[in-house]
């Protein structure tokens, strides 16, 4: 068994280009599609109002907003921007209130309104506070407002409400999603092209030689599968390490847990690769089937776009037998929804179960068909 692993490893050292290609593609695609390095580009929201308001509390708060870039313009210009679809919504600012001008109904519109409403609430709260307080001088007023601001930023207690599954809303982080999606997608290729040599060696007679030797057949399978797992897992570790320590993503402090949660996924994909290899008759068929299977898996598993936007019941049903779905679910649950590891047992168990089933059926088929 050691001999097989050693031989495979030596071949890998001499010819690491396929591995490097898929690892590189995962990183490059995740960087490009995930928009890393472009900074936190803010969504521009056109704003109209009196010039005096631009330097007022409201104007200052809008300018300091971290999420949206509120851009002041004339009313006609704002309306034209929205009419042309260059902005989803705009805001007409007044002294005591605001008016939303909506071009496209989207979750962003609600968030913009919440942001603007929060600014007005703060302003009104501050005004009310000053009205009921004994502060007379400007210094006293500033001290009071500073204390109010501090209390808001560091409250005595905080109520947070989180939900892992929700039919109505979902959390989405484009950078993380691209990273998870492309990592899970490209590792399928690396693993499958590592399982393929079983088929090639069987056809070439290498396995016949090993069968006639004192080596046991299970040793031959285990050695190949351990090696395939190793290379697939190595790819995943390299990608996440690059994003953790070079790109600088902190993964909410879940980096070790991510690496742990990838073990059942890589295992399931190794098993799927065995199953796929057992179904095909030769390398040509394998090369034709692999892109079809992997791209379909990525599309219905939520690697390219969030699975939450998929409406078709049929596609959603198909996604339930797709290891990539559970890989994405586990990663999103862990990092985006901040779910504890023990609550991710469901997707992890399903991945392990799929691994066992695919491997059992795959090896059985290979043996029965004398592939």
């Amino acid at each position, binding site marked *: 068994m050691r*001999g097989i692993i050693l*031989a495979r490893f*030596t*071949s890998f050292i001499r010819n690491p280009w396929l591995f490097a290609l898929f690892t590189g593609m995962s990183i490059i695609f995740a960087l490009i599609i995930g928009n890393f390095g472009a900074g936190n580009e803010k969504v521009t929201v056109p704003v109209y109002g009196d010039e005096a308001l631009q330097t007022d509390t409201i104007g200052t708060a809008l300018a300091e907003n971290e999420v949206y870039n509120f851009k002041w313009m004339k009313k006609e210009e704002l309306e034209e921007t929205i009419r042309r679809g260059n902005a989803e919504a705009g805001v007409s600012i007044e002294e005591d209130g605001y008016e939303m001008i909506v071009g496209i109904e989207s979750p962003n519109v609600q968030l913009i309104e919440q942001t603007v409403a929060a600014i007005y609430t703060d302003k009104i709260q501050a005004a009310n506070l000053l009205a009921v307080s004994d502060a007379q001088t400007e210094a006293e007023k500033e001290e009071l407002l500073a204390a109010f601001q501090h209390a808001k930023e560091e409250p005595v207690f905080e109520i947070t409400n989180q939900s892992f599954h929700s039919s109505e809303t979902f959390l989405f982080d484009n950078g993380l999603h691209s990273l998870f999606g492309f990592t899970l997608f490209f590792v399928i290729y690396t693993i499958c092209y590592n399982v393929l040599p079983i088929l090639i060696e069987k*056809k070439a007679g290498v396995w016949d030689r090993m069968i*006639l*030797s004192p080596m046991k057949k299970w040793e031959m399978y285990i050695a190949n599968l351990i090696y395939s797992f190793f290379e697939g897992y190595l790819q995943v570790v390299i990608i996440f390490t690059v994003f953790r320590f070079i790109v600088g993503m902190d993964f909410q402090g879940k980096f070790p847990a991510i690496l742990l949660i990838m073990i059942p996924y890589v295992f399931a994909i190794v098993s799927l690769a065995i199953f796929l290899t057992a179904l095909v008759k030769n390398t040509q068929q394998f090369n034709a089937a692999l892109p079809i299977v992997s791209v379909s898996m990525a599309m219905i598993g939520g690697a390219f776009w969030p699975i939450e936007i998929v409406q078709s019941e049929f596609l959603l049903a198909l996604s339930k037998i797709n290891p990539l779905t559970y890989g994405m679910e586990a990663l999103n649950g862990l990092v985006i929804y901040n779910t504890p590891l023990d609550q991710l047992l469901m997707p992890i168990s399903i991945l392990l179960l799929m691994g066992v089933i695919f491997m059992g059926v795959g090896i059985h088929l290979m043996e029965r068909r004398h592939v």
Partner: protein
Amino acid sequence: MLELIDVSKKFKQNAAVKSMNMFIEKGEIVGLLGPNGAGKSTAISILSSLVEPTSGDVKYQQKSIIKNPVALRKIIGIVPQEIALYEDLTAEENMKFFGRIYRLKGEKLNMKVQEVLEQIGLSDRRKDMVKTFSGGMKRRLNIGVAMLHDPEILVMDEPTVGIDPQSRHYILQTVKRLNQERQMTVLYTSHYMEEVEFLCDRIYIMDKGSLIASGTKDEIKRILASENTISVKADYWNDAFIEKLKANPVIHQMNVEEKEITFVVSREVNIFTKLAKLAEETNVSLNAVDVKNVTLEDVFLHLTGRALRD
């Protein structure tokens, strides 16, 4: 020593081997001859315990090996038809890999690798990767890795396919030497008649899954003892000559090439006068008429009605 007893093998509806009987004695080189698709590879896979027969038995030293092949597997070495090597490893690394799976290690493994590399003439290329080798060198290494554990029986499945004449000659000489110096038993399958004629003591001829002849070279050639193979040469033929020759009832297995026609006739027929008369009638100028020695190719043609490489 090793025998197939009434062995058949079916893959779904396709019978690859039909009621085959065959034996190999210690120290002999046995040839299994047949065209592509004759069932040779299936037969040797059954013989070497890689494939279980649908019916019949395989015995080694009088004991069935179908359910317990361990004893046979210890003393058998197989040279598959394909190049069963790791292309990204060197010749030496391949040797060591296959040596290790036979539990060879340390100094013993190193010595054995060195010895076999010398036997197959690759010791000066030991550090080169297999993918840089020529077809002939790969074939030699393919044979070498089957010899690492000193097998008593070497099963070779068309080991010279697709290589140059020099490499083929080298391989044939190596096989002959192994047999003579070490009394290694060899089962050699091929569709090259001349290889089998050169190497083998006894020959089995297969076609369409069945054995159609067996025996020593002379015994097999005697199948055609009552007939002669005639070769007629000329610079050109015309249709009338060919048609009249074909129409002659005593002539059969006729093969027409650009400047040579071969056919088989009974020894009792005096074909020379007939040929001379026909040539004169059709205005064909004959250059030579020869009676050829019977070859295994002729026997195969006689038995199956088609050439080995068809």
